[in-house]
């Protein structure tokens, strides 16, 4: 019997293990799903009868809701489990939680967890599809994908673009997914931030390092501004939020001084006045809410492809369910 090779494999753990073609397939498939959300009846029967568990061990509003909308618009049945309500607080191990879910015959798990590698750990132990919705400081692949889709929407390409990730790269799963994905699609990637918040040996990953954000803005076509977790100050990584804003904050003055128009992304939630000033966050160069909209389409594409949907007939969802 000739089993078609699944486009993505069993799971989506990160962008590092994916090929350029796989990433492009997801982005192209997402294009077809964009307009499902623009209709009056925002539902297609693609995942009817599929059961999906959203297993969130860390607080999340945006990502969890984005996944949930994507699932509901594809007609899947979903259950949300959050850490505070789960048996994890009663001492159950991650493996046992997963096995219990599995025993209820589910099809997919979308998981966020505070430990790097947790998604891979789960994926190796249960037969259901696993989608990583953020594991520690490792990857957040759907965020990386929606960032790339948004850049491509606005600049028409990724190849040859210069994208700089600004801020707390050390603790950021968004940064790693951006780096791995953008490099595969032929973009040039840099990071900029206080050295205390940059991982070591980034150059060996093919990433440029700008210690001062002004140099980064001189270089970049696109910047992806990371959220500065307020607890980094307590950890001693930066002396104060005020100083951070002074030297690394994305301000209108800094953008105006750059030699070209720079597209500004932010994965949210924003700390206005810390890593990004309000006149930038609300300004003409930002595409922050476009990222949020694209997030639903990208997640629909990932769910569709993991469930065995064929990329070459994804366009049929445009007709399907139309009222």
């Amino acid at each position, binding site marked *: 019997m000739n089993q078609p090779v699944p486009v993505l494999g069993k799971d989506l753990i990160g962008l*590092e293990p994916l090929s350029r073609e796989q990433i492009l397939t997801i982005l192209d498939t997402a294009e077809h799903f964009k307009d499902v959300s623009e209709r009056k009846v925002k539902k297609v029967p693609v995942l009817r009868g599929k059961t999906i568990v959203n297993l969130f061990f860390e607080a999340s509003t945006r990502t969890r809701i984005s996944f949930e909308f994507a699932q509901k618009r594809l007609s899947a049945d979903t259950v949300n489990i959050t850490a505070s309500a789960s048996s994890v607080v009663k001492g159950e*191990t*991650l*493996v046992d939680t997963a096995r219990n879910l599995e025993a209820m015959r589910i099809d997919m798990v979308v998981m966020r*967890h*505070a*430990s*790097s*590698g*947790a998604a*891979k*750990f789960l994926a190796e132990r249960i037969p259901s599809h696993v989608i990583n919705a953020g*594991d*520690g*400081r*490792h*990857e957040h692949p759907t965020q990386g994908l929606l960032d790339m889709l948004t850049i491509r929407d606005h600049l028409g390409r990724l190849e040859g673009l210069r994208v700089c990730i600004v801020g707390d790269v050390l603790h950021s*799963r968004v940064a*790693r997914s951006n780096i791995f994905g953008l490099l595969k699609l032929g973009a040039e990637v840099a990071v900029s931030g206080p050295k205390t918040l940059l*991982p*070591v*040996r*980034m150059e*060996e*990953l093919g990433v440029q390092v700008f210690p001062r954000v002004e140099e980064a803005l001189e270089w970049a076509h696109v910047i992806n501004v990371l959220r500065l977790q307020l607890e980094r100050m307590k950890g001693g990584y930066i002396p104060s939020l005020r100083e951070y804003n002074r030297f690394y904050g994305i301000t209108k003055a800094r953008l105006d001084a750059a030699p070209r128009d720079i597209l500004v992304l932010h994965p949210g939630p924003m700390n206005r006045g810390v890593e990004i000033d309000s006149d930038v966050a609300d300004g003409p160069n930002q595409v922050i809410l476009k990222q949020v909209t694209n997030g639903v389409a990208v997640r629909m594409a990932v769910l569709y492809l993991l469930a065995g949907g064929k990329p070459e007939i994804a366009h049929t969802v445009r007709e399907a369910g139309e009222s």
Partner: protein
Amino acid sequence: MIIRPLLIRGGRVVDPSQGLDEVLDLLLVNGAVSALSKNVGPAAEAREIDGNGLIVMPGLIDAHVHLREPGQEHKETIASGARAAAAGGFTAVCAMPNTDPPIDDPATVGFVMAEGKRVGVARVYPMGAISVGMKGEALTEFGEMVEAGAVAVTDDGRPVMDSGLMRMALEYAQAFGIPVVDHPEDLTLSRDGSMNEGLVSSRLGLRGKPNAAEDIHIVRDILLAELTGGRIHLQHVSTRQGVDAIRRAKARGLQVTGEASPHHLLLTDEAVDGYRTEAKMNPPLRSPEDRDAVQEGLLDGTLDMVATDHAPHHYDEKEAAFDDAPNGVVGLETALGLIHTHFVLTGRMDLSTMVERMSVAPARVFSLPGGTLRVGSPGDVTVFDPQGEWVVDPVRFLSKSRNTPFAGWTLKGKPRYTVVGGAVVWEEKQK
């Protein structure tokens, strides 16, 4: 108890303590070496072992083992650990004090000694804690612990962060003739790291511990040994600069010794890729340059001995996300095969040096009986088949735990008989 005499005939005796490497007969009577020569005459009642093709060496000693008892018997017990030691060719082990409660008073030292004797397999020599409760604040009763059987003091697993306390430990220990043993790690640098800081940690998004965390404490300990005239033993050295610092200290005549673990000798932080918790230990697996430097240090004697840092953990504890899994790997049942296969058979180390690093040196540094087959010494002998090929299968370990990064490795060379006090305490079942 009367022990039957044991006569090992015609084995290749490798004993660097006497500069010996030749085919001899070895007779053990009443728990001690009674004769070591060509053609020992028949001994009444003796069990005879045909040593043809086998290597006969002073019993191996592992100076760094976690037996987990008291308090964590689900990981290992003194009994299971001692049996695992014997199965790995070790006739003696030093038990680390980070138990629950810690071995930090003479009564607990006495318990470990007594339990080791009751089990009667490999000899068990406890190390006592440096500080009460291993809290890094006040010195324990070194003198009373030594009288109860402790062979050294260490807060292994919890580095002594207070340099003033370390100075006093190095001074106070001198009267009792024991070295101070340190797990060198500056916790303010390693912070909450869970692997080596490097390219792999950057890729995997795991928190890294830089080499400097270890280097700084190695250098500090050396300076304090110089200041006090004390003896410092540095555990599981894993960094290039750490090895260099010890080499220079030795050249200056300081009383500094060090150990290398099989995993730091043979693996790098690439082994963590895929978030493999069986490659998580402290200090972490480092870069290829560091691994090469540790190898070089062991070969030239900068690092005096191989010590496994046998650190058993229950299956459930390692079956977790990387950050959530405990540090440590088991080592007793793989060390000899690993060193023989990867150092002796590759021609980088002769058998004599292997025995020096795995038996003679630990006996010397910790003033333990053994480490020699001189007539009159304890009858602690490892008989080793250098041809025996085997595949590491954790399910077959006698240790209670299975957490090894070497599962599936094919090794050449395995213990055939482990003899403690003239009695065979472990032998390989012949098919």
